Structures are given as C-alpha cells and as structure tokens.
C-alpha cells in the first residue's frame, strides 16, 4: 500500500493532502494576513510593547506554569502507572477506575469547590494556584496513557532486574523510565499544551497583571481592543504571538511524540 506506488496514485495522494492542508492553513494564513494590515510588522511590535500586557512576562508565566504542571504530572502519573501496570495489590481496579473517572470533570462545573480549596490552602495569588489544579486535572488522562504504554514493556526485563536484586524504585528508574520515555515525553508535551491553553483556572485565580497567562492576555486583547482597524490588526498579531511559543514546543517534542503517542495503544 505504501511502497511502489504508481505515479498516478502518488499524484492523487499529494493532491488530497494539499487540499486538506489548504483548508487547515486557511484560518492561520488569514490571521497572519490580517495581522500585517496597515502597519505591517509594527503591529507585532505594538503588542510586544503594550503598556498593560507585558508580552515576555505573560509568556514566561505561561511557560513556567505549564512547565511545572508538566513535571508534576509526569512524575506522579508515571509512578502510579508503574504500580498499576506492573504490580499486584488489593483494590487495584477500584483505585484505577476511580482515578480515571476524574478524567471527565469539567473545570466549569467545579469552580466554587476549587476556589474553596485554594483559599484554605492559602495558595491565592501564587503560581501554585495555577500549577496544582492544572496538574490535578491532567493527571488522570496521563495516567491512562502511561499505564497502557507501561503494560507493553515486557515483564521479562523486569524479572531479570529482580533477579539482580534491584528494588522496585530502582526498576522504575532503570527500566520503566528509559523504556517508557517516548510515552513520558508524549505525556509531557500534552500536559504542557493543555496547561498552556487553559483559560478558566487563570481567570479564577489570577488577580495581578504580573501573573497574566497567554490565555488571559488574549482575552484582554479580544475584550478591550478591536475598535480601530489598527487595533484589529494588533489583535491578530497578539493571537499569533500568543500561539508561537506553543508551536515551538510542539516542533521540539514532535519527533518523540509520534513514537510515543500510541505505542501503548497498538499491541501487535
């Protein structure tokens, strides 16, 4: 199917791909064109030098929050996935399903309790108030992915390690983590993206402009500017500027991600 294609077929495939790519590129190209209206690249400069929204600070905040929740999720989820995939213990299924059940909690439905939690933990106005809930909301999904992948790591390797007398944490470190790296990187990239894109948690817990994230900044631009043609162009420039960092992250992780994404789901 994929080798020795006839030229005609190659042409057809290429054509179909191009058609879809054009559709998918259209909104992006449209916003790039819009962002260059009137003042060209000065629109980008205007966003970067905006008096109320400090672009680099905003990007730093989002990077920092997304990075930390990514680390927490990958450590916590891989530890738990290791146990669920490779250990035998009571209540295993109950515990697993009760964690996976949390997969579907919409943040919108639990705004009040989240706020109470944050208040009683005295985490208001700190980065923790963003990092921890984002980590908690992402962890169940990442656990599911990692558990699937870890199950595919042959027991024989672990057994060999056990014969050498390695402790379970050592096996985790020396076998599960290196072998599970593709899936772990995949989980890291996904958690990063989800955290980066989240809107409601920063909205609830951020009060100071110095802690604005890219999504809050985006909403700031869409909500308060846009009256003049220049501002419309700037709005588009802002939308693009807010997206660039996550695209860079994706391009970085892409190589690893593809290996990891379904390695656990497809079993041959």
């Amino acid at each position: 199917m994929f080798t020795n294609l006839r030229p005609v077929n190659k042409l057809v495939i290429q054509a179909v791909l191009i058609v879809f790519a054009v559709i998918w590129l259209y909104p992006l190209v449209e916003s790039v064109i819009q962002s260059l209206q009137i003042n060209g690249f000065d629109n980008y400069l205007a966003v970067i030098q905006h008096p109320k929204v400090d672009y680099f600070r905003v990007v730093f905040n989002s990077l920092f929050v997304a990075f930390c929740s990514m680390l927490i999720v990958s450590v916590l989820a891989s530890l738990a996935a290791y146990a669920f995939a490779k250990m035998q213990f009571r209540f295993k299924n109950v515990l697993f399903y009760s964690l996976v059940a949390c997969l579907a909690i919409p943040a919108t439905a639990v705004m009040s309790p989240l706020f109470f939690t944050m208040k009683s933990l005295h985490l208001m106005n700190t980065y923790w108030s963003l990092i921890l809930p984002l980590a908690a909301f992402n962890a169940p999904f990442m656990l599911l992915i990692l558990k699937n992948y870890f199950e595919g790591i042959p027991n024989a390797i672990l057994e060999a390690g056990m014969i050498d007398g390695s402790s379970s944490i050592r096996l985790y470190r020396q076998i599960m983590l290196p072998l599970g790296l593709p899936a772990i990187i995949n989980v890291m990239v996904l958690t990063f993206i989800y955290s980066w894109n989240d809107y409601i948690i920063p909205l609830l817990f951020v009060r100071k402009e110095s802690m604005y994230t890219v999504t809050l900044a985006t909403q700031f631009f869409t909500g308060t500017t846009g009256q003049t043609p220049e501002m419309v162009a700037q709005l588009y420039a802002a939308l693009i500027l807010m997206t660039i960092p996550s695209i860079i992250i994706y391009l970085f992780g892409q190589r690893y991600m593809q290996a990891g994404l379904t390695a656990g789901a497809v079993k041959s």
Partner: protein
Amino acid sequence: MRTKKWQWALTGVVAASLVVSACGNSNNNAGGESSPSGTAPASGGKQETITFWSWVPTDIQSKKVIEAFEAANPDIKVEYWRGEQTDFQKKLQVAIGAGEGPDLMGMQVGGMLNQYANMLEPIQPLADEKWGAGWEEKFVPSSIDQVKSKDGSMVALPLNLTGQEFVLYNKAIFDKVGITEVPKTYEEWKQVNAKISEAGIVPVAMGAKDTWHDVDMFVALSNQFAPGQVYEAEQGKVPFTDQAFVDTMNAWKQLFTDKVFQDGALGLSTYPDARDQYFYSGKAAMFLTGSWHVGFGLPGGEKEGTAIENDATGMFLLPQIGPNPSKAVASVDTALAINKNSEHKEAAWKLLEFLTMGEGQQIMADFIQGSPSKIGVEVQTLDQFKFDSEKEAVGVVNQEIAGAIGKRLLDYPELNNAIGIAMQDVAAGKDVEAALKEVQKVSEGIAR
C-alpha cells in the same frame, strides 16, 4: 546513556520545585488583599491597598479616575481589575461565594444585586454617618430605589444611569444617501433602510446573540404595546402569554423577517462584533446600543482611529413600532458595593464616595458613559465633540432617560435567560405562543 537522560530530568524536577517554592513565597509576601500580610507597607508611610473589580470604568476611564483618586488619597493604592460582563460575573461570584473577593465591586441592579445582598456591606448607616441625614436627596430619586435589595436594605450606591433602546447612526452615510430626518416610526425606518441598502450598505447592525440585549429590546418594545405591563408580568401578576407580549414578540419577529436587522444577527454579539465589524468599520449605517455609547465621539473615546472617525454620528430613540409612543427604559448602570468581608472598608468607602459623590462622579460624567446619578453634575466636555450632531445626541439621550417609562433591568435572572432564549427562538422562526408559554413556565417557577 538513558540513565543520564533520566538523571537530567530529575535534576530538572528538583530545580523547578525550588523555583516554584521561591516564587510562591515571594508572591505571598507581595500580598493579596486577603492574606494577613496584605497590608504590608510598600514604601515608607502606611499605604493601604484596596482591590476594585468592575466592568465600568473602562480601561481608559479607570486610568484617569483612579489616578485622580490616588492623587487625592496618597495613602491608598487601588488595584483595579476590569472584566467583560461574562468574565466579571464568574470571577466575582466564585470569589464572593468563598467569602473572598474585592473590597469594592461593580453591581448590576435587579437580579444581581438581590443575589449578592447578604454579602454586601449595608450602605445606609455608613452614608448617614459620613454624609448626614438627607443625603439621599442628592441622588436621582429612581437611582436610590434601585440600589436597595428585595428586603429594602441599601447595599450599594449608584455610579450612573443608562437607558435603552437607542440607535447610534452614521450621519455621513445618511447625508450621502439623502436622508435628512431620523426615522420616528417603523414605516419611516423601513424606508430609510431601503435607501441605505440600495447604496450597498448594511442599514442596521444588531447583536442579538446577547440575551441581555434581546431582553432590553423586550422591555423597551413591550412598553410600546402595553406600557408597564412587563413589570406586572415580572412580578407574576400578569402571564407572559398576555396579548401584549404576543404583539411584542410578533413585532420583534418582524424586525428579522422585514430584514431591518442584518442577516446573521443572532450569531453576532453587540460588542465587539456588531460594533467593530459593522458600525465602526463604516459597513453599517446604524447600530442598536444603549445610551452609554453617546460619548464615544469624545476625544480619546472609542471612535478615535476607527474608519468612521471623520463621520458625524448621532443617536435617536428606537422608532415607534407598537401603538404607543416609543419611550426609553432606564436603570442604574453600575452600582458600587462594599464587600462585607473586606478588611479595608474605610478605604473602600473613600473610593466609593469619590466615585459617587466626589470628583470621580464628575470625571465619569465627563466621559458620558452614563447620566450622572448625583443631581447637579453637569457634563463639562460637551464642547469637545467634533460634530454638533454628537453634542445634540447627549441632550436627546438625557431627555429620554429623564422621561423613561420604567426600569431597564428585571429582577429575576432566570426570567432574563428565559426571555432572551424565547426571543432568539422566535427570531429563528419558532411559534410565538409556544415560546411565550416557556417563559411563563419559568416565571411560575420563581419564588418571588
């Protein structure tokens, strides 16, 4: 090789957690309004920081008005957060529900104020003490009634009043197609629209995606069919299936079937869509909005820099569609309330006083975001308008608001939602009576 990667990752985790805890701490010290260390002095003296959340003042307005306040009160620093209505409502509700939230906050009268009443500081005793008895007479009478909750206690003070339903129009376009008079009746309106359409311009931009705007139309329109009836229905004394409302809905439906409103109006929000993409871009000749827009032509106002910057504009009242004359409906636009749990009530009161009674009231009045709630405050920026028609519009609007037939905002949020949805359904072709029955059903479920 692989082990190395892993060790590197571990180092990363440790380093990151150190940074996080460092940041966390530094943020705690910087202090939020709720943390015990929140009042820590910033530099020298005893500077107190208060938080203020609202949707009005807008960003441009807040800059001026808060700077003026801080200049007059050097010992108080104001942290102002402005959110669009939807963001503002969710952020505020969640915070106040947890016994938190800003020291001073914007309140919409009617439904919102009633719900928050228990968590707001009673204003009457404070005002009596600071301003002496009889201070109420300094405010527009109707505005003082509206800042009282259902049980009659006063929990906020009015910043300004606004009314609906107004039409902002582009006089340059009117002139170009030879329209000399603004339409007063439905027939005239349709004729005007036909002329504008011929010139390839969208006549009227309406943002009917917003249920609040639809409800404004309902209240304004129904007062043309049966004056005051809507307030009876609001209190459950008249059913929403009453003929007056059937007529109102039919008239509303006609606005769509007669193509008075642009195609796709139901998918368009009033702000920013209809405003920016249609009216400010010069692609539409009229735009349905509230009296708060009448000052948009002032220097530094929204109009500056738009495609219609050099076009004269004006405002007129919604034309008469029903059997009775068209009248404005007006309410307090922004009421200001102090958080019952605030630790800075004294400072919050100072800002509240500044905005409602003091210099802030004048600054806000000069932006013409709404009519002043304090009696005797005159707008001093009228001469700054570039066009006479814009200056005249302020007079038109203020006169209509003074002669308003009733209030704009209804008391029950679920009723607002139900009416808004029914109107969108009707505009999309649903049977009027079926839609009104659903409103009535919701109305019957309200514990009044």
